[in-house]
């Protein structure tokens, strides 16, 4: 069978985010088994392992599951990702960090078995700025943009990109850190109230998101000018603030809401069959959709690998090849019951990062739902490309890696 490890975190400070993702990831594979009898006729098996978002437990989970023929790891935490980059390389198992992890892994020439399609943090920063450019008729010169970020490796990711972009577009950029866990953000929001930036971007996670949104509402910051990264845009983040959160925006890696055919199938084959993962109450939420989307991409890569190697029960190495040859077209999405859910893209040996496309969604507090307000927006490759090249070159030098794909 096809083994998919799921390093989930259903406990600990980030459990609220971890549960829906894990449910979505699990339910999709259950759906494939129930509806299609697996992928290419081979049943899938999900091996879930609880990490609690903790690096050491992540390592333990990896070691415990890798022997079972795990095809691809989706570690879900930047910390664990960094652990696994060298380990998976040594063990020849591919790693998929969708919308997180080490951004420069997009450079397939250096990172042979790490993939971070369809978009990464630097894309995210650029997408947000591009959205603002759209809103302002292409000119944001002189505008003040602040970034409220989680004071960790994750939160610091977009800073470099935004600095570059501020040079390019002439806006004033200011980064405001919030230390873990982020329960108390008075200083930061008083500062924002004082400086009245035109826009605030946010790279937050966990309780920091909820408090930030609440505080923004408290100082009556115009919510439509407040944009979070895709990890700051789930129902969890906005619900506690109630009506105050109305109008808050965040980036979206994929479609939102339950108006996709796939949900009918999930209801029918998974939920009604009593096979839903977890408590079964997360279906349709943003992070559930993300887990499902990640699973779909993995399944597609398996199909690709099966096609390439002409075998059903593929190995991790073959899976890697499948991922590198992955193509997601409108038809694929349609066929999977997710029309327009994600971008169309293809992966190549050089480019493991996908197209870098994302959308913007906005929260409607009265309807208690997110709605997409833009189509896919691209990122500024002119800015990001060199950054990725620089960072991956440094990694290659440090670890004596010679470039592939030549």
């Amino acid at each position, binding site marked *: 069978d096809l083994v998919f490890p799921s390093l*989930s975190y*259903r*406990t600990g400070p980030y*459990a609220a985010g971890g*549960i829906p993702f894990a449910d979505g990831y699990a339910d999709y594979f259950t759906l494939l088994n129930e509806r299609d009898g697996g992928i290419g006729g081979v049943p899938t098996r999900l091996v*879930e*392992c*609880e990490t*609690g978002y*903790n*690096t*050491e*437990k992540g*390592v*333990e989970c*990896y*070691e*415990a599951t*890798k*022997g079972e023929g795990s095809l691809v790891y989706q570690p879900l*935490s*930047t*910390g664990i990702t*960094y*652990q696994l*980059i*060298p*380990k998976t*390389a*040594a063990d020849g198992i591919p790693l998929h960090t969708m919308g997180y992890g*080490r*951004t*420069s892994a997009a450079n397939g020439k250096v990172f042979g078995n790490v993939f971070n399609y369809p978009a990464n943090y630097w894309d995210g920063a650029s997408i947000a700025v591009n959205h603002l450019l759209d809103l302002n008729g292409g000119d944001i010169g002189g505008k003040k943009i602040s970034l409220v970020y989680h*004071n*960790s*490796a994750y939160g*610091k*990711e977009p800073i*470099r990109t935004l600095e570059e972009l501020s040079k390019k577009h002439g806006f004033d950029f200011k980064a405001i850190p919030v*230390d*873990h866990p982020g329960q108390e953000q008075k200083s930061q929001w008083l500062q924002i109230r004082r400086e009245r930036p035109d826009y605030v971007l946010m790279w937050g996670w966990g309780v920091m998101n909820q408090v930030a949104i609440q505080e923004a509402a408290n100082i009556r910051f115009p919510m439509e000018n407040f944009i979070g990264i895709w990890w700051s845009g789930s129902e969890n983040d906005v619900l506690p603030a109630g009506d105050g959160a109305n109008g808050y925006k965040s980036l979206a890696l994929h479609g939102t809401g339950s108006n996709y055919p796939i949900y009918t199938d999930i209801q029918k084959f998974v939920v009604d069959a009593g096979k839903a*993962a*977890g408590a079964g109450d997360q279906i349709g939420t943003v992070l559930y959709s993300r887990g499902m989307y990640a699973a779909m991409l993995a399944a597609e890569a398996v199909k690709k690998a099966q096609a390439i190697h002409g075998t059903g029960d593929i190995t991790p190495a073959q899976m890697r090849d499948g991922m590198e040859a992955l193509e997601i077209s409108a038809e694929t999405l349609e066929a999977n019951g997710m029309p327009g859910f994600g971008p169309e893209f293809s992966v190549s040996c050089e480019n493991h990062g996908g197209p870098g496309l994302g959308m913007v969604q906005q929260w409607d507090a009265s309807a208690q739902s997110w709605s997409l307000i833009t189509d896919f927006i691209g990122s500024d490759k002119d800015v990001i490309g060199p*950054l990725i090249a620089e*960072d991956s070159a*440094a990694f290659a030098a*440090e*670890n004596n890696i010679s470039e592939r794909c030549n």
Partner: protein
Amino acid sequence: MFYREAGDFKTSYADDNQTFPIRFDRVRYYVVLAVAFGIIPFIINDYWANAVFVPFLIYAIAAIGLNILTGYCGQVSLGTGGFMAVGAYACYKLMTGFPEISIVLHILGAGFVTAGVGVLFGLPSLRIKGFYLAVATLAAQFFLVWLFNKVPWFYNNSASGQISAPERTVFGVPVTGANTDAWAKYLICLVFVVVLAWLARNLTRGTLGRSWMAIRDMDIAAEIIGVNPLRAKLTAFAISSFFVGIAGALFFSVYLGAVEVGEVFGINKSFLVLFMIILGGLGSIFGSFAGAAFLVLLPVLLKNILVGQLGWATDLAAHIELIIVGGLIMVFLIIEPHGLAQLWRIAKEKLRLWPFPH
């Protein structure tokens, strides 16, 4: 009479002072060493190394370190995580700054750097006592983590703020980096553990150890009979930090290979190591091992039983695991507040008397 010490007479004070005055204990100790060095390296695999042995050995070092400070010298510290971070970052800077020098020296160097930092944060202990000191050491914890996160020099300006250990070898065998074999990881940690435990044992049984314990048991009286509290406390901080620093360095370079400071060396780490020594037994080197083994193994074991054997959902299992770990901590403390080491001692006393009840 499973356990005998009768007939084991000593004819010199030096003999009487040895670590295991009782022959039975001594033999058992050599057997353990023989297995650790002679058998385990040949059968160990990645899972056992990475999930059990390597973390156990490294935590044992950290626990011995903290036990010196807390168990022997009575200064409760919650800054262990921060000091481990110092060790890790010092090791990283040394590894990347002087790649031609042996990793073993880097690790030792990291220990010395940490010792220095430890002394610095130990200074307030001259004024501040008890839980006040414990909470005060959190200042070290939070400040150090913040510092390593904030100053790019510490992580060589890498874009992510993470540090990753490059490959380094000992006698041509890689011990850090992705290509390290399980046995190599295990063995280097084991060597450090054995040497450090031996040093700790020597230090704690001599004059210095007695001055620590005197300060712990009654600091004023200790001072009046001639213990210099400044010296006693600062040496405890220094030596404890040295151990903890080495643990941090190994944790980063050998065990994890890549580290983000807030996540790996956060306050939870401080608490974890403290648990180990309290559960294991304050003021006992054996206790440090017992505590580390217990807290490394228990979660792994529970997980394997609940998820692996019983097939429970991981989240239920994780919650129940929390309940069980918390419950066991309480139960253990109720049964024997002085830790596993004391349980072991009582068991020995019982065995000695066996089959008589008293």
